[in-house]
């Protein structure tokens, strides 16, 4: 196994080739905030929270997708990155309709947690209050587009882990949203196995169990990592 040596926030680090900067940083106890990343799913660098500075490169790079390289000098927590991360969170809050007080995920929401971490006590950007629909056509689950941050965890878990590929992303820009099937009501998509993995991995209250009301959604995205690891090791039981 070949090894790359690099520096992360001044710590000398040796990591196997192919390790991502995010995995390397977490391995040595350097926290990097993420929202779209989830162990067990392919990385997509959609949320831009994990951007880091690499000396010699003018561009910020997403830590979730960038492999370690020999001699790399990485900074994960500069004032510039701190400001960008708070701005990213403010953009997520103002772009949709995130009314924490009445949300199913209040108190157990990754977006809410990231807002605390970046020190957001208000948004410096104006609220858009877009008109977005709610899909309650599925018998067990609901999708509230107002709370969706387009992280695409649901798209990836359904495709890569469940193998059903119910979800996809439709349109672009401010019209971009998660679609079921060929832009059908979720309940009309035969491919859905009702497994609920999308609900479990959703970082906000966008996907929820209909039985849950305000503050009652306690999703556990980490369970996915356990499932994927068990599959990789052939440990599934019948």
């Amino acid at each position, binding site marked *: 196994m070949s090894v790359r040596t690099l520096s992360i926030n001044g710590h000398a680090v040796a990591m196997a080739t192919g390790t991502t900067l995010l995995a390397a940083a977490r391995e040595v106890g350097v926290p990097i905030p993420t929202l779209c990343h989830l162990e067990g799913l392919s990385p997509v660098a959609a949320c831009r929270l994990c951007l880091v500075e690499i000396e010699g490169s003018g561009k910020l790079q997403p830590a979730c997708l960038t492999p370690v390289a020999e001699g790399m000098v990485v900074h994960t927590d500069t004032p510039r990155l701190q400001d960008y991360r708070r701005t990213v969170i403010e953009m997520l*809050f103002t772009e949709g*309709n995130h*009314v*924490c*007080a*009445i*949300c199913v995920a*209040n*108190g157990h929401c990754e977006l*809410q*947690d990231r*807002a*605390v971490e970046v*020190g*957001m*006590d*208000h*948004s410096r950007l*104006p*609220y858009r*209050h*877009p*008109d*977005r629909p709610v899909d309650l056509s599925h018998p067990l689950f609901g999708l509230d587009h107002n709370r969706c941050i387009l992280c695409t965890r649901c798209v990836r878990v359904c495709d890569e882990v469940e193998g059903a590929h119910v979800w996809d992303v439709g349109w672009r820009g401010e019209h971009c949203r998660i679609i079921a099937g060929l832009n059908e009501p979720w309940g009309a998509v035969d491919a859905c196995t009702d497994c609920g993995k999308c609900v479990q991995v959703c970082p906000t209250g966008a996907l929820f169990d209909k039985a849950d009301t305000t503050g009652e959604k306690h999703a556990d995205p980490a369970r996915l990592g356990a499932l994927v690891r068990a599959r990789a090791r052939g440990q599934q039981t019948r």
Partner: protein
Amino acid sequence: MKLRFATVWLAGCSGCHMSFLDLDEWLIELAQRVDVVFSPVASDIKTYPEDVDVCLVEGGVANADNLELILQVRARTRLLVSFGDCAITANVPGMRNRLEGAEPVLRRGYLELADGSGQLPHAPGLVPDLLERVLPLHELVPVDHYLPGCPPSAARIRAFLEPLLRGEPPLMEGAAMIRFG
């Protein structure tokens, strides 16, 4: 000299003020350290006075009365505090903004959802006109401090006010102080 202290209730549910009253016996300590010069829960004064040191403002700005009062508050207050999620984000009152305008909101509320006998409210000078959009305070006037929460808990309000009364800026970080909701 005692600080001149006020609280104001705009477009909110009064929950932030209820949480303020949850300060219980600490309210007695507060009353010894400040003069309450205007407050829907602690004063009978009807006109917002001059030379206020600290004002906690609950609620977003949703109608003409709210707008008039917040401009007055800003002009007459040294430290204006956005008190709770409605003041900071427009929160639940702001959910009407998706209907894009005051008239569609009134039609929705008073005609479309009425049982056949609905009529639009019309009482000039008595019922204030709705603004087209509900806005957080800082989109209209400069705000000095933000105290999030729906409502902010009594413990959070106290942890905010104690340093402020000593003339120090409150340390607003961590879930205990700035978590929304």
